């Protein structure tokens, strides 16, 4: 009886690994293509591993394209969005959680309702709005439509709800203002959440295609995901280079994920409303 189980465990494990490797194949293939020479890429006699390992595609991208500028745009906008999201959502979550103030119920309802609202359908109005503020082709223009995160507000509220009331009451007796209570008590107790939310927001902001695509018309303001499909460069065949650019676009977020895996997965579950 036990022998049967062991065999099926092994079979299951091997099966799962095969499935995982098949799943990863597209990324493997893209990476391998980026390390081939362009002439090898279009050779009808293809091979699963580069016959000649070549970094030419990467050098091409790094020297002939403005990828440095695009990286800066991505970093600036992603960091900006992350900071603003946290700065805006945390106090609001705290207020909704701990303070009884006029309009609290309405605001809470508004926050919950806004999760269902498709921001992308408002693209025309937002484009006109940003244009009226003369913020097209600026970092602010890309950042501002993305700083609203009702999900972050809700998550913060839920976690702040769980902080023992005694702490707050003690601080009030000590004469602290709400702001000080937030900064000195609630925020430090929830660094884990803040980190998790910040990571997930950063990754989402970095990967965003739609808003930067709409809000920028000049190539030097493109973020990396937008640039890799919108800007062409002249030089014969460049299939390996396309892959190299894609890999370079994916590297930062992949690195982030691999380093902070636990926090990222925790954040995903939180923002979906699952405790864990």
């Amino acid at each position: 009886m036990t022998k049967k189980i062991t065999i099926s465990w092994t079979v299951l494990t091997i099966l799962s690994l095969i499935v995982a490797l098949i799943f990863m194949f597209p990324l493997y293939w893209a990476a391998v293509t980026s390390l081939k020479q362009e002439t090898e890429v279009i050779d009808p006699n293809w091979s699963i591993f580069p016959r000649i390992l070549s970094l030419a595609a990467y050098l091409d991208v790094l020297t002939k394209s403005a990828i440095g500028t695009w990286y800066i745009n991505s970093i600036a906008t992603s960091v900006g969005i992350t900071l603003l999201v946290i700065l805006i959502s945390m106090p609001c979550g705290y207020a909704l959680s701990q303070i009884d103030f006029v309009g609290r119920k309405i605001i809470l309802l508004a926050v919950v309702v806004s999760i269902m609202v498709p921001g992308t359908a408002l693209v025309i109005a937002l484009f006109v709005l940003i244009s009226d503020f003369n913020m097209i082709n600026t970092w602010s223009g890309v950042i501002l439509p993305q700083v609203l995160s009702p999900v972050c507000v809700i998550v913060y509220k839920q976690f702040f709800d769980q902080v023992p009331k005694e702490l707050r009451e003690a601080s009030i007796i000590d004469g602290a203002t709400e702001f000080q209570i937030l900064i000195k008590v609630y925020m430090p107790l929830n660094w884990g959440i803040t980190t998790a939310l910040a990571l997930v927001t950063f990754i989402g902001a970095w990967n965003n295609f739609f808003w930067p695509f709409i809000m920028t018309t000049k190539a030097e303001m493109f973020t990396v995901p937008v640039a890799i499909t919108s800007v062409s460069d002249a030089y014969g065949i460049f299939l390996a280079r396309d892959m190299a650019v894609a890999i370079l676009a994916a590297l930062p977020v992949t690195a982030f994920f691999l380093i902070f895996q636990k926090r990222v997965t925790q954040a995903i579950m939180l923002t979906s409303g699952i405790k864990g």
Partner: protein
Amino acid sequence: MKNKIISFFAGIVISIYSFGASAVTEVVWWDFLGGGDGVRMKQMIDNFNEAHPDIQINATTLEWGVPFYTKVQTSAAVGEQPDIMTYHLSRFPLAVPTGVLRPISAEELASVGITADRFFPANWEAANFGGATHGVPLDIHANVMYFNAEVLGEAGLLDENGHPTLLDGVDNFMNGLAKLDEMMEFPIGFASDNGGMIWRWWYSILNMMEGDFVDGSSICPGDKCEKSLQILIDLVEKGYMPSNVDYQSAKGMFISGESAIHINGVWEVPTMVDLMRNNELGFKFGVVDMPQVGPKMATWSDSHAFAIPHSDKNPISDEKLEAVLKVMGWMSDNSLFWGTAGHIPANTEVVDSVFYKNMQPNSTYANIGENMVVDPFLPIAGVASPTYDAFSNYIAPAVNGELSAEEAIQMMRDDLEALM
């Protein structure tokens, strides 16, 4: 005190910045030249920048076609338009009424030596659609046939001058392809998934057959449109060219030696030339007119022009305008180098010069100038127009075997006649 120090340094920074700014005028340039010719244009831009320390072109190459023209339109609407851009003359009938092109006055042009007599009459007329000059032509470009001289030689399809012999008549062409088909899977590498590429070849064939695209307000009178399309459908059906191949892959098929013939525009001439110079092209290549499959000879052609986007929100300043005009003038004067991009320069003085006449491989296809036909001068035609859309939506699937020629042309007729 702190404030005083800050404002002092701020003052210095600002004055350095504005000093720097007034010394150099930056011209923001957008083009869509992503083919082999783009390499040459980048060289020209570098040459200009070197020769003009006070005017620096800041160039970006964007995706060709609809994305380019959409970006121009939206950026002009919000005042973020470039100072100068490339624009297809075939699109002028569509663009001029929308007000996206800033008319350039005769005085403004004359100030940099640009006058009507410098250009071919038909070309200049096209650039003046709508009663004002909306663009300065840079070149005229057409469709050609690239061929693998070694393979064609092996197949016995070259004459004693090294010229392909399958260019004369549809039967001749098909027979030649049949011979090549025995040697390789797909004799022709052609971007059969690309509506624009199909338009260019198809339109040439239509004119070779002396057919019309438009007659009054009806599209494709008679059956010549269907017959022209049928030729392309047959090529795929017979297995002479693969279905649903994208532009890059089609080029790759020719470059790798997989296909002996490549139908494309002249703008990939520099690609082939550069590959050959670097010994990366495994064979000797040639460029000639496309095969003549009808009573007449005809070659689709279009023209790149430099234009200034118009914006109500942020019109171009006089300073920028002066710089832009200088760029246009310089580009026109120095367009001999643009010839190495495969194009025919629009500047007649350059074309008449002995330097251009001897340029290779351009001189092997110089006679396309006699047979050029341009897109119909209507708002429904030209790059990124409803006609191009129809070609992507209906004609391309027909070429690739999804629709019959009659069905596809009829669908196109329905779409376009509704817009006439």
